[in-house]
């Protein structure tokens, strides 16, 4: 009896000590976000909770710190959902870290806002990078990324063969009619909850990233890219209405779900859908799920297949006091070796040919080489204007409304009007 109470007491004491340790540990970790004390610079990344990429970035930082003694980089990771808000808040408080990563389409906005400093003297290092992985604004380079991702149509060879669907190739992708025919065949087979899954349940940047390429393949666009002043005629022209009608038709026919499940790749692996519209990031799990998974080019809706380009990239803040340290790190990290490291650990497309040779599967003729080819052939950058965040959210809402049955022309006219008003109210970001 006595010994058991004592044991309980020691256990209690241990718990209390552990908790205190944890708490003080947390407090210690929280308060060190300022930069530039004797050569130490801070690096922010959106990768908290994303072990693969965070580990790769940590390796680069460790290697850099070990490679020289002048500078020290201190990595701080944020969860992706709150990353942009953290950066905006830090910028308002003039507490941006020296180095940070940026989602590709936000680069013009942040460059225009004065968050980012142009990267000087890196033209050589970045000369063989995929064009979609180098963030430019006003003819200056502001960021570069280690990888890109590619949108694909995922299916299984056996599904295609059983239903008599032609296997599309990069030279001969599905046409609009062929795709409709393939969906009809899959529906007729009665095996699937939905013939295709367009991941309509995802939110945020996925919508402009995934669905504006279809619009571009029809011949429309998010904004007129000649001068980035107006969306009139491209977002509400006949091609755009055609896109909207097609997109709504898929949902109305029951070819895709109005709102698909939270994990479309898992649904595909479970045989709920016949074709999955997703990205190269599903390659690893879906190859594990089936031995005949194929990653097909997306559909040619008139102007050839299109996919979104540009993923997370790295840049330097305009308020960085120790620019030599930041430049040194960014140059160090841009080596093929690290491009290969990050691409391998994240299963993404390495941006340079040199790195591609080192990443398993991405060598010429490798099983992942196709993703790099898609990225080279089909990728379209999202509009390079500081107005992009507004365009993206406006397009998202319009596309969601259209999918749910709103009148295409009226919805697109409204979106165009809103985007034009925003560009104009900001003096076209001159």
């Amino acid at each position, binding site marked *: 009896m006595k010994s058991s109470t004592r044991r309980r007491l020691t256990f209690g004491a241990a718990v209390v000590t552990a908790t205190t340790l944890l708490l003080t540990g947390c407090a210690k970790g929280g308060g060190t976000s300022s930069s530039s004390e004797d050569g130490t610079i801070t690096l922010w990344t959106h990768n908290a909770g994303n072990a693969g990429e965070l580990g790769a970035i940590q390796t680069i930082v460790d290697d850099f710190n070990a490679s020289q003694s002048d500078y020290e980089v201190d990595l701080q990771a944020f969860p992706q959902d709150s990353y942009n*808000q953290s950066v*905006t808040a830090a*910028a308002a408080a003039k507490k941006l870290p020296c180095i940070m990563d940026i989602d590709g389409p936000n680069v013009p*906005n*942040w460059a*225009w*806002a*004065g*968050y980012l400093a142009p990267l000087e003297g890196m033209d050589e290092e970045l000369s063989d990078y995929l064009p979609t992985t180098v963030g430019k604004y006003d003819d200056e380079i502001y960021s570069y990324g280690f990888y890109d991702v590619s949108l694909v149509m995922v299916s299984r060879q056996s599904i295609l063969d059983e239903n008599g669907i032609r296997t599309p190739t990069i030279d001969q992708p599905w046409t609009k009619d062929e795709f409709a025919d393939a969906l009809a065949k899959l529906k007729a087979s009665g095996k699937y909850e939905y013939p295709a899954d367009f991941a309509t349940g995802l*939110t945020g940047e996925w919508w402009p990233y995934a669905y504006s390429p279809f619009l571009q393949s029809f011949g429309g666009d998010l904004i007129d890219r000649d001068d980035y002043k107006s969306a009139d005629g491209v977002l509400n022209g006949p091609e755009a209405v055609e896109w909207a009608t097609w997109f709504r038709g898929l949902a109305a026919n029951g070819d895709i779900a*109005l*709102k698909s499940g939270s994990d479309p790749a898992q649904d595909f692996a479970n045989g709920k859908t016949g074709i999955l519209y997703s990205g190269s990031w599903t390659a690893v799990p879906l190859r594990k799920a089936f031995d005949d998974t194929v990653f097909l080019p997306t559909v040619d809706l008139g102007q050839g297949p299109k996919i979104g380009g540009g993923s997370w990239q790295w840049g330097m803040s305009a308020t960085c006091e120790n620019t030599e340290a930041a430049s040194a790190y960014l140059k160090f990290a841009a080596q093929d070796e690290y491009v290969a490291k990050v691409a391998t650990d994240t299963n993404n497309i390495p941006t340079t040919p040199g790195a591609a040779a080192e990443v398993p599967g991405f060598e010429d003729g490798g099983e992942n080489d196709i993703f790099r080819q898609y990225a080279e052939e089909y990728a379209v950058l999202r509009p390079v204007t500081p107005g992009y*965040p*507004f365009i993206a*959210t*406006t397009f998202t*809402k319009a596309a*969601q*409304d259209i999918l*749910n*049955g*709103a009148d295409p022309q009226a919805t697109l006219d*409204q979106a165009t009007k809103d985007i034009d*008003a*925003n560009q104009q*109210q*900001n*003096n076209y970001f001159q």
Partner: protein
Amino acid sequence: MTTPTAEPLSEAGVVPRAARTTGTAERRAPSGTRSPGLVALLMLLPASVLIITFLLVPIGLTFVLAFTNARLISPEPAQFIGVTNFVNLFSDDTFWASLRNTIIFTVVIVPVQSGAALGLAVLINSKMRGTNFFRTVYFLPVVTSMVVVSMLWLFLYQPNGLINAVLANFGIAGPDWLGNPKTALIAIILMSAWQAMGFHMVIWLSGLQTIAQELYEAAALDGANRWQQFVNVTWPGLRQTRTFILITITIAAFGLFSQVNIMTQGGPLNSTTTLVFQAVRSGFQQQQTGYASAISLVFFVLVLAVSLVQRHLTRDKEATR
């Protein structure tokens, strides 16, 4: 259990008495070293600093920013653009949908939530074993974060989720609750009422327990049945509690945001967008601080008007009594 009852009543009775006692104690002890005015100022300080920083300054800023083209992220200084934001706002279909949804939500949820909470309170007020258990169970959703509750109900409301599975047992083909413009707002209303009702149940309960037991005994002696007791004893006895609950639910209902943000993002087809959701979307995702301020200003005026009307109505009743 008694503190919540004291709150709505306190304005009239409890506070001055408490203030009087502490006041005299204060005056006797240090005997004139500090003036009462200074002490009062010191006591006001913590609350007023917080209220000024987090309430008055933002409200003041909203008034100013609403008439500018201020942006969340911009190298340009904000410019005064007059009433352009309001002109745009009043010609924006989404704004009218937001206003409509906010009003529908409030008008429906006030009676539903307070009625259900009263029902629970009456049930729990009976002297039976295990009332504490039920009290805790009904109160659980209140202490659970709205974000968590929304995520859970997101699964419950799925076309093949639990709710539709249960309905299917009765031969009813349930709708795609959150995907159908006709049912999305109702789904959010039901879930919100369920989440918050425990809180108001506790307040009703405290009101119920202040009603003297003798009144029920007297009513029973007069031959009143349960329903007559409720109408003639319970309901009049809950007048103060009722006012408090009406006002708190109304104000909470106007601020509808978290559920919408997590479950539907305002869709489908604007069927669940609300004023606060639209303000947050414009201000943060679309970076239009000025426009969002204009929405907030309209929202502020709306809530102010409704609160004034409610105050007026409840005060009137007091006077006639």
